[in-house]
């Protein structure tokens, strides 16, 4: 999480240091981009959502009071942005069953995994928001339970409960799909 360095970067950004902002973006762009993909119904809008998160961060960091870590703050902004995007997309619903991306189209283990990933991510997107966030942060981003709890501003026990429920749902959906195939 590198909170100390993040705080130093945030202070430099508050003083108008553009290079510090570029560093912050480079540090978190992949993570925010991937999380946006997981949280948006329309994963194609992930780049726009990530961009919006960092733009809000740039204008809003002046009001940042260092009560939490920068990553927590970025993640909260991301949740708000994704919620707004999902609300907008819900008015004009898009096809949720998207084709897997072709950028890794070789018949390797990675390609098969990416196809499976698309299916699993689709199920993750359909989870309740809290469970979805826990799965994305804890399982996919590899944060610890305490880090996930800090980011989501809840207790560690709550994280565990949400994770347990989410995994149960994902497993049951996977089993149901397997039965359908056989």
């Amino acid at each position, binding site marked *: 999480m590198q909170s100390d360095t993040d705080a130093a970067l945030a202070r430099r950004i508050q003083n108008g240091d553009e290079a510090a902002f570029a560093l912050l973006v480079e540090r978190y*762009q992949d993570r925010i981009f991937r999380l946006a993909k997981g949280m948006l119904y329309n994963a194609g809008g992930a780049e726009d959502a990530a961009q919006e998160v960092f733009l809000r961060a740039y204008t809003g960091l002046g009001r940042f009071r260092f009560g939490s870590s920068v990553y927590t703050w970025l993640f909260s902004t991301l949740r708000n942005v994704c919620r707004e995007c999902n609300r907008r997309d819900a008015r004009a619903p898009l096809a949720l069953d998207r084709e897997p991306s072709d950028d890794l189209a070789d018949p390797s283990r990675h390609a098969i995994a990416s196809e*499976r990933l698309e299916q699993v991510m689709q199920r993750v997107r359909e989870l309740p928001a809290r469970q979805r966030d826990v799965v994305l942060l804890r399982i996919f981003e590899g944060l610890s339970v305490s880090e996930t709890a800090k980011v989501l501003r809840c207790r560690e026990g709550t994280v565990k409960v949400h994770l347990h429920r989410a995994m149960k749902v994902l*497993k049951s959906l996977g089993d149901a799909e397997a039965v359908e195939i056989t």
Partner: protein
Amino acid sequence: MAMLKQWRSHDLMTTQDPIDQDLIDAYRSDAAPAGFAARLTRAAVAQAQARSNPLKWALPAIASIALVVAVVWNYPNDATRQQLPRMEVSFSALPSALPTLSSSKTLAVPSIAALATIPSIPTLDLTMPEYGRIKSQANQLRTPKLPN
């Protein structure tokens, strides 16, 4: 520590778990598009400069205020005012019976009720037969005629 982290990412996984390490690796191989940070930094700086430039938002405000002032300044006051409907109040014929403050031996000023006396407004002077005729015509117009 490395082992602990590995255990953490595997602790929820069994052979039947829907999310295994291959999936997590595939997820983490996804990255933001190339040049994303550079483009974003340029956009953020441009946006911040646009907001901090007072001319961008002050000019429209100043222009709208100037427009309102010009319209008010050039408003044709005299010519238009004479065409407006007016009601004249006359103080020439004050009723003599109205109480004045002279009765209190101080000032002989007419009361406020006297100041508000409105002169006679031309009204429709109808005699009773005319009034009856107009009323009957109005009633005829109001009541629908039944078909024969």
